């Protein structure tokens, strides 16, 4: 599946640790974005040595949460959405692509988050039960990515395999107003992708989607709907005994 990538011009902005976006090199994407042919050879070779340490050499255990400005990320995300919009056939496809992008971030968030939380404790352990994993997504993933825990987590009454995480004011959507003819679209599909990757990594395959459920108090309230696969529920039943 072809993944949409953020525009290489903006890859400089991703050089930070908040959402741990990949640093795409201009050489790999030059075929798509028709950079002048001299650019790939000179950009990599003649880069002056940075006075700051390389992000890859930085200590993993000390996150600097205040690295990226919210405005910079908003512009990057806005460009991601515009770029994806030009290449899709409909709203569902757009949501799916944003989901895929979020997925790639989620796998890295899971690794980093688990490493940071467990490496400092005396008895590191892995979450294998469903409810504690969902709780850890609700607090730790949100804290790692957005800086604050999500607002609510709920279990659906109708279906036993559905859970919902609610965010009253998703930071990535703060400056986005969806036009009326696309009112079904939720750009939080990006966040849904992050959650889906974390669940997959922990061993709970699920389908995760984002739906906007505005209330009078919070007009941009979004619900992340997690629909777990049957195998997860069966396993939980077995483990309960």
């Amino acid at each position: 599946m072809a993944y949409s990538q953020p525009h290489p011009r903006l890859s400089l902005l991703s050089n930070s640790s908040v959402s741990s976006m990949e640093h795409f090199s201009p050489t790999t994407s030059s075929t798509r974005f028709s950079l002048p042919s001299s650019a790939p050879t000179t950009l990599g070779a003649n880069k002056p040595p940075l006075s700051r340490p390389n992000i890859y050499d930085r200590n993993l255990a000390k996150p600097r949460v205040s690295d990226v400005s919210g405005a910079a990320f908003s512009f990057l995300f806005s460009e991601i959405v515009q770029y994806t919009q030009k290449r899709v056939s409909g709203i569902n496809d757009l949501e799916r692509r944003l989901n895929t992008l979020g997925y790639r971030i989620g796998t890295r968030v899971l690794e980093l988050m688990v490493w940071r939380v467990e490496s400092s404790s005396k008895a590191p352990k892995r979450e294998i039960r469903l409810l504690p994993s969902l709780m850890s997504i609700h607090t730790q993933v949100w804290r790692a990515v957005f800086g604050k825990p999500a607002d609510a987590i709920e279990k659906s009454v109708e279906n036993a395999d559905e859970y919902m995480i609610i965010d009253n004011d998703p930071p990535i959507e703060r400056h986005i107003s969806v036009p009326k003819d696309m009112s079904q679209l939720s750009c939080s599909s990006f966040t849904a992708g992050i959650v889906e990757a974390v669940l997959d990594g922990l061993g709970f395959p699920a389908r995760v989607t984002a739906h906007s459920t505005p209330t009078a108090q919070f007009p941009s309230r979004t619900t992340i709907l997690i629909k777990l696969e049957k195998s997860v529920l069966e396993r939980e039943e077995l483990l309960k005994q």
Partner: protein
Amino acid sequence: MAIFGLWVINKAGGLVYHRNFADGLAQLTSNEYLVLAGTLHGIHAITSRLSPMGSSSGAQVIEGESFKMTILLTATGTKFVLLTSLADSTAEATLQKVYETYSDAVMKNPFHTPEMPIRSEAFDVRIAALIGSGQG
């Protein structure tokens, strides 16, 4: 001390946003707003050449008998025009805040095409919160 209206003019001279707040000015059709905005854009360009001191930015305040117009020209060529009563002294500060709101709600919105008319609910809501009904 009333704010009558807000216009946002893109760098080509086309009106991308207009909104009325307090009553006090004649009601115009949307076509007339477009024409007036284009004229103002032209006048602004002419006044930038008329300065006796060398280069200047163009008219910033135009006063009439019952209202005045404060124009903020941004570095990108977008003009924010605030129509207020003569007694209003906060027009420039308000325009700065409108500019901030514009860069937040409009520029970061992926569904907005630059230089096109602004159809953003977030922008409307925030401007309403900022200016209110235009009184006081």
